[in-house]
């Protein structure tokens, strides 16, 4: 993991001091509320429905046990004993008091953490594949790149007052687990065909929200050394040309869409050519310095197969199921990555109590070199567990009610906080997630259905990624009543696709039935071994729509 040097530490402390003074200056009237707002947002502090919300950066989703324990301490001391992991690998506290926030930031700085740019119209916290350094299909660990971008984007003097927020994601693998095509900039590390040189494919203009778009490739191969100057070129074009007349048209995706990908690309290349690259780019030595922190942990040489694991699986059915769903193959023989689901049946997706955080921190120390990952699916991962120790880990997780065996299954639901917390929301989303989770609670049935991603947003801003859910659910409001729109066929992976609308909106209580009908069509129509999304692609939306419409009509008849 990355460790701060003296400069990083001083930098973060300076930002805390600055923020402390900004809070005081707001209270004494030096700053108006309008002036204070972007300053607090740039430090992750939102004013929500009931209280302030503080969003803490977990850069590229990597946490140490020590850091997770500190988050637990903050949850106990300054919040209500829990935190909420988000789809951008951040952690949100929902109940801090404004006057306490500077002290919370100091506690974060103690463990090399911060809340810099987790909000506001600036470059946001950089995300990456949660299986970085673990996945076998990886060209290179994306985290050194993400860390370099974290540093470069922090308090950037030129790009702190952009037209709108700006999100960057990096993957180093063939299979995209970071949804890079749904980001303002997506970077894919690749080898140049022929030479084998490492560089980046650069994708710009993806995004969800009210105008969902899949990003366009603006550079097929960017040499590694040019990364920062190329990013500056993109950002400058966006900062100057991005629309500022309408908040809803201000993201870079709209600019790319309006002027066309070709023209956008031309402007970026022109800006890039005019930039003095060497004065902006990081030295190769600096890149190496950062990369050294992400060297693999001291793995032991282990046999591929674990007898202990086989015996335990044979003896404990629940454990065998957990291994089937929540254990991910590791590139190193004898090891595995384990998903700790934060989606217990009927629970709030992404919530973890301080007690759970401490238990997970402890287990990470015992079984995973003290390392934890946060996934954009709002789960946690212990990335380096010995196969021999999977059973012991599972027992400990089970005792703490953290062994829900549903990773990537129908109850592994992504949900934004919705109207229960958020001032932008138009409808509740957590209760929808909970009712669906209860509807599909049966483990055998979930496994029969197989991988199926349900994603729920409580408004068109799409924090719950509904557009790229296999089944997407969008909560809206009309005449004071909440209703829900379903989309099908969204995909967050390298085959990124936006979902198609299924039909008219539904009342909250009708959602589980409708989802069940969709699932039933899939179960009926699928070929052997075919996942939901593949069946959908083969059949199109028609049979699903038919079942859905029948359902809606039937309900209306029943009501008459």
């Amino acid at each position, binding site marked *: 993991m990355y460790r701060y040097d003296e400069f990083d530490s001083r930098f973060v402390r300076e930002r805390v001091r*600055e923020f402390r*003074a900004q809070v005081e200056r707001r209270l004494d*009237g030096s700053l108006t509320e309008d002036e204070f707002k972007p300053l607090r947002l740039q430090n992750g502090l939102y004013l929500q429905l009931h209280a302030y919300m503080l969003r803490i950066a977990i850069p590229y989703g990597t946490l140490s046990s020590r850091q997770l324990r500190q988050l637990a301490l903050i949850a106990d001391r300054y919040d209500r004993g829990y935190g909420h992991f988000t789809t951008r690998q951040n952690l949100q506290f929902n109940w801090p008091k404004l006057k306490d926030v500077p002290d919370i930031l100091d506690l974060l700085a103690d463990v090399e953490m911060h809340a810099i740019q987790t909000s506001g119209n600036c470059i946001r916290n950089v995300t990456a594949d949660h299986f970085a350094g673990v996945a076998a299909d990886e060209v290179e660990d994306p985290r050194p790149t993400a860390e370099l971008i974290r540093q470069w984007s922090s308090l950037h003097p*030129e790009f702190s007052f952009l037209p709108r927020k700006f999100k960057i994601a990096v993957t180093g693998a063939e299979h995209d687990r970071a949804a890079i095509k749904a980001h303002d900039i997506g970077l894919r590390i690749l080898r140049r065909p022929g030479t084998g040189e490492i560089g980046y494919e650069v994708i710009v203009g993806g995004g969800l929200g009210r105008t969902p778009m899949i990003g366009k490739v603006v550079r097929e191969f960017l040499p590694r050394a040019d990364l920062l100057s190329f990013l500056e070129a993109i950002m400058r074009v966006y900062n100057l040309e991005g629309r500022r007349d309408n908040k809803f048209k201000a993201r870079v995706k709209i600019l790319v869409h309006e002027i066309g990908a070709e023209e956008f690309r031309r402007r970026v290349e022109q800006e890039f050519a005019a930039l003095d690259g060497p004065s902006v780019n990081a030295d190769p030595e600096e890149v190496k310095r950062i990369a050294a922190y992400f060297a693999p942990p001291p793995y032991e040489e282990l046999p591929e197969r674990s007898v202990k694991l086989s015996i335990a699986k044979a003896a404990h059915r629940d454990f065998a199921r957990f291994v089937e769903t929540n254990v991910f193959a590791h590139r190193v023989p004898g090891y595995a990555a384990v998903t700790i689901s934060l989606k217990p049946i009927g629970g709030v997706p992404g919530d973890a109590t301080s007690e759970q955080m401490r238990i997970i921190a402890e287990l990470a120390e015992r079984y995973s070199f003290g390392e934890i990952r946060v996934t954009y699916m709002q789960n946690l991962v212990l990335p380096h567990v010995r196969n021999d120790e999977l059973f012991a880990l599972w027992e400990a997780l089970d005792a703490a009610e953290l062994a829900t065996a549903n990773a990537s299954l129908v109850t592994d639901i992504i949900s934004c906080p919705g109207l229960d917390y958020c001032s932008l929301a138009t409808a509740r989303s957590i209760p929808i997630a909970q009712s669906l989770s209860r509807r599909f609670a049966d483990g055998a049935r979930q496994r029969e259905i197989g991988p199926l991603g349900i994603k729920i947003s409580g408004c068109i801003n799409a924090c719950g990624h509904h557009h790229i859910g296999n089944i997407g659910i969008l909560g809206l409001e009309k005449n004071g009543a909440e209703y829900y729109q379903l989309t099908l066929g969204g995909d967050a992976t390298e085959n990124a696709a936006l979902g198609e609308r299924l039909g008219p909106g539904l009342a909250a209580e009708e959602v589980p039935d409708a989802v069940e009908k969709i699932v039933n069509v899939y179960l009926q129509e699928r070929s052997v071994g075919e996942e939901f999304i593949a069946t959908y692609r083969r059949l199109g939306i028609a049979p699903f729509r038919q079942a859905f419409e029948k359902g809606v009509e039937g309900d209306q008849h029943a009501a008459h």
Partner: protein
Amino acid sequence: MPLIDATGFKQNGFARMTEGCSLPAGDVILPLEKLSTWREEVFSRGDRVGVHLPNTARVDEVWPLLDDVALVSIDFPSFADGRGFSLARGLRQRGFFGVLRAFGPLIADQMRHALGCGFDEVETPEAVIVRQPISQWRAALETITLRYQRGAGNGLSILDRRRAAREMGHRRFHSGLALARE
């Protein structure tokens, strides 16, 4: 409006030519659209010429007009509109060596953004200074003393400092070797 640079308040040596008024005496900041009309007259009386740019100006288009222009003032219609920062950096990159001034309701907290993008000074409304006295502008600069970005503003970035430390390390290492050989 008060003028502030990295050290504090500054005497404003330029007068602005405003809509419907005649050409002021002394050094003048002309609106972009009046630049070609009045520049020669200002030069001929031996005064300096400045120009005020909207933040939608393009570097490529204004660059040919900036010959002998001593000061470029860039408009910030609101403190939250950051276009002026990119325009300033673009001009510096292109090779503008004159004075760069940010004009508009910037707040004390943005002094470091302005300096980091190549501005020398900020001209902000009196109302801002009433709430944010000069001590706050100085404090803002003294609070954040480090930055990561290379090629932005004066002084060494963190990346440059790390490089310097590395080179120092190399030198120490090599002089150590030399000593050991002796």
